[in-house]
C-alpha cells in the first residue's frame, strides 16, 4: 500500500513553494478557462489543488496551507476584483475544501489511493454534492439570488459554479494525490520491455483526442467522434490502474478544453453556455466510471495476490506437515552417517594411541568421515530447502533432478518398507518450467502415498516405477506407478478434493494442494487405478520451448 513515508516527504519549505506555485498557476489557468461572455470559469482548478494539499498533509499543517493559498489567491486576482469579494471567495473555498477533506478522511480513509470502489464512490459523491451545497454561499450566487448580478440569474450561476468546482475536484485531485503518493516511482519501475504499453496508450490518447477535439466544426458535426476517447481511456483504466486512468482523464479533458477554446471539436457547435455545461457533464459522466473501473481492476488484482499468498502459505503448511510425518525417517537418515563418523573416528583414535596406525588405513578412515559428513549436510540442506517459505521462483528444472531430490527425502519410508524403486528416464528430455521446492513437494507427496498404499503388498512385490518421458512436445510427463491397494472406486476425481483421505493419519490435503500447485504451473495431475495392480499417477509439466 502506498503511503507517505517520512523519508519521501518533501521538506516543508519546498512543499510550500510547490503549493504556492501550483496554486498560482491553477488560479491563472482557471481564470483563462472562460469562454466569451462568461464570467464563471469552466473548471476552477485551484480548488482541486487546495483539496489535494489538504488530503496530502496532516490537519496540523492545514493552517499553513490556507495562509499560503489565501495570499497567492489574493495576489493573483486582486487587481481585477474588489477586496471584499476576494476575501469572501477565499473563505467559502476554505469551507468547501476543509469539509470535503474531513469527510474523505472520515469515510473514504487516507491515503486516498482510488484503488477501491468505496473510495472512488465516496470521493465522487462528495466531489459532486459538496460543491453544489457550498456554491450557494459564493459571492456570485448569493448576489445573483439577490438580483445584484446583472449578467446571471440564480439558476444559471449556481449550477455553473457548482459544476466548475466539481469537475476540478474530479479531474485534478486524483491526479495530484496519486502522483504525490507514488512519486515518479511507477515511471522508474517500468521495465524497458513493458514501457511500450503506457507509451502506446499515451499516443493513442493523443491521436484520438486530437481527432475528436482538434478537427474543424464541420467534421465535428458527428457527435459520435466523442466515443473515440473511450477505447484508450478504458485501456488505461484496465492496464495502468488509478494513476494511469486519472492522468489519461485529465489529458483528455485538457485536449477538449483546448479544442473548444480554439473553436474546434464537437462542443463548439453549441452556444457558449450550453458548450460549457456539456463539457462539464461530459467530464463528470466519464471520470467516475473510468476511475471506478480502474478501482475494480485493482481490487481484483489485490484479491488475486491475496489468493496466491494464501495458496503459498497452504503449500508451505502442508510441506511442514509432511516433514513432520517424515521426521522419524529423517532422524534415522542422519543417525546413519553420525554412526559411521563416530565409529570411524573412535577406530582411528584407538589405532593411533595403540601405535598400530597405518597411514593408508587412516587415510581411508578420514576419507569416509569426510564423505559421511557431506552426506549428513546434504540431508539437512535438502530438508531446509524443502521447508523454507519463499515466493515461488519459476526456473528451468530438470525433472529427473526433482525426482532424485524427492526420492532422497523419502528414502526413509522407502527403505523401511523395502520398496524397490525403478526409475526410467527418456533420452534428451527438455527442461520444464517450475518452482523446484513446490514440484519436489508434489512428487514427494505422490511417492509417500505410493509407499503407504503398499504396506499390505508382499515385500518382494513392493515396486515403485517412475518413468519420465516426453509428452507430445509441449509437456514432460512423470508417471508414478505403484503395486499398492489401488484407488477406491470412483475416487479418481474425489481424491483431489480437500480433506478427502483414505489414510488413518493425514489431513487429506496432499493431493488437493498438489493439484493446485500443478495447475498454477500450467500442468496437469491425475491418477488412475491399475485394476488390481496398484495405481498410476501422472504429472505433466510444461516443457521449455
Amino acid at each position: 500500500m502506498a503511503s507517505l513515508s517520512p523519508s519521501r516527504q518533501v521538506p516543508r519549505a519546498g512543499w510550500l513553494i510547490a503549493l504556492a506555485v501550483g496554486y498560482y498557476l491553477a488560479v491563472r489557468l482557471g481564470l483563462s478557462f472562460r469562454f466569451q461572455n462568461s464570467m464563471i470559469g469552466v473548471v476552477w482548478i485551484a480548488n482541486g489543488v487546495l483539496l489535494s494539499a489538504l488530503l496530502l498533509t496532516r490537519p496540523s499543517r492545514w493552517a499553513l496551507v490556507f495562509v499560503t493559498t489565501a495570499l497567492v489567491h489574493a495576489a493573483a486576482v486582486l487587481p481585477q476584483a474588489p477586496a471584499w469579494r476576494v476575501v469572501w471567495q477565499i473563505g467559502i473555498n476554505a469551507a468547501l475544501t476543509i469539509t470535503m477533506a474531513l469527510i474523505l478522511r472520515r469515510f473514504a480513509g487516507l491515503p486516498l489511493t482510488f484503488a477501491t470502489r468505496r473510495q472512488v464512490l465516496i470521493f465522487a459523491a462528495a466531489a459532486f454534492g459538496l460543491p453544489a451545497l457550498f456554491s450557494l454561499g459564493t459571492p456570485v450566487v448569493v448576489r445573483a439570488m439577490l438580483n445584484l448580478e446583472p449578467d446571471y440569474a440564480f439558476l444559471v450561476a449556481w449550477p455553473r459554479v457548482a459544476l466548475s468546482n466539481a469537475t476540478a475536484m474530479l479531474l485534478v485531485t486524483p491526479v495530484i494525490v496519486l502522483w504525490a503518493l507514488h512519486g515518479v516511482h511507477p515511471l522508474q519501475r517500468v521495465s524497458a520491455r513493458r514501457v511500450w504499453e503506457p507509451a502506446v496508450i499515451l499516443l493513442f490518447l493523443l491521436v484520438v483526442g486530437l481527432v475528436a477535439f482538434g478537427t474543424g466544426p464541420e467534421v465535428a458535426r458527428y457527435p459520435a467522434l466523442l466515443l473515440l476517447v473511450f477505447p484508450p481511456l478504458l485501456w488505461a483504466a484496465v492496464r495502468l490502474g488509478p494513476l494511469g486512468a486519472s492522468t489519461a482523464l485529465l489529458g483528455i479533458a485538457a485536449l477538449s478544453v483546448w479544442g473548444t477554446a480554439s473553436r474546434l471539436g464537437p462542443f463548439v457547435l453549441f452556444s457558449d453556455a450550453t458548450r460549457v455545461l456539456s463539457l462539464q457533464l461530459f467530464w463528470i459522466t466519464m471520470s467516475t466510471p473510468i476511475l471506478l473501473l480502474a478501482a475494480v481492476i485493482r481490487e481484483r488484482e489485490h484479491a488475486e495476490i491475496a489468493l496466491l499468498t494464501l495458496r503459498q502459505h497452504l503449500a508451505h503448511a502442508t510441506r511442514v506437515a509432511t516433514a513432520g510425518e517424515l521426521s522419524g525417517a529423517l532422524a534415522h537418515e542422519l543417525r546413519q552417517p553420525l554412526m559411521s563418523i563416530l565409529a570411524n573416528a573412535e577406530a582411528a583414535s584407538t589405532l593411533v594411541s595403540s601405535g598400530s596406525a597405518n597411514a593408508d588405513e587412516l587415510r581411508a578412515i578420514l576419507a569416509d568421515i569426510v564423505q559421511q559428513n557431506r552426506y549428513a549436510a546434504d540431508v539437512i540442506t535438502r530438508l531446509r530447502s524443502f521447508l523454507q517459505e519463499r515466493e515461488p521462483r519459476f526456473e528451468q528444472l530438470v525433472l529427473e533432478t526433482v525426482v532424485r531430490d524427492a526420492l532422497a527425502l523419502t528414502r526413509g519410508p522407502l527403505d523401511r518398507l523395502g520398496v524397490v524403486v525403478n526409475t526410467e528416464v527418456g533420452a534428451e528430455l527438455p527442461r520444464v518450467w517450475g518452482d523446484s521446492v513446490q514440484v519436489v513437494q508434489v512428487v514427494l507427496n505422490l511417492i509417500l502415498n505410493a509407499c503407504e498404499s503398499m504396506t499390505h503388498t508382499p515385500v518382494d512385490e513392493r515396486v515403485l516405477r517412475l518413468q519420465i518421458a516426453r509428452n507430445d512436445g509441449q509437456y514432460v510427463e512423470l508417471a508414478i506407478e505403484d503395486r499398492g491397494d489401488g484407488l477406491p472406486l470412483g475416487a479418481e476425481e474425489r481424491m483431489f478434493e480437500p480433506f478427502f483421505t483414505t489414510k488413518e493419519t493425514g489431513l487429506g490435503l496432499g493431493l488437493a494442494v498438489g493439484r493446485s500447485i500443478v495447475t498454477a504451473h500450467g500442468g496437469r495431475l491425475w491418477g488412475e487405478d491399475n485394476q488390481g495392480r496398484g495405481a498410476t499417477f501422472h504429472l505433466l509439466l510444461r516443457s521449455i520451448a
Partner: protein
Amino acid sequence: MADAAPLIAIVDDEPSVRVALGRLCRSHGLYAREFASAHELVASLAERRPDCVVLDLQLPDCEGLDADDWLRQGGFDLPLVIITGRDDVKSSSESVVLRKPVDAKTLFAAIRSILEAP
C-alpha cells in the same frame, strides 16, 4: 588365544556403517566380519558361528519382519546386540538395543556382556 578370538558379525545394509563398525572392532583387537543382510549371515553360519551379532534392525529383506524376529523364528538362536536409527523400537527381552550413533564404550560394554555371559 589368537585362533580362539571371538567372532563378531556385523550386519548392516548401509556399507559406510558396516565398514566403520568393522574397523572399530578390529582396532580394539576383536575379530569382525561384515554382512550386508541377515541372509548373508545365515549363509555363513555353516562356516563359523559368530559369538556375537551386531545387528541393524532396518534390513529390507526379511519378509516384513524385523531382522531379529526373523532370526529368532528361523531358530538360529544367536546372541544379538541390536543397533537402530529408529525411534520406535521395542526392546525385546533377550537382546540389548542400542540407539545409533553408539559410542565405542557402550558398544563394547554390550558386546563384552554377551561374550562373558555363561
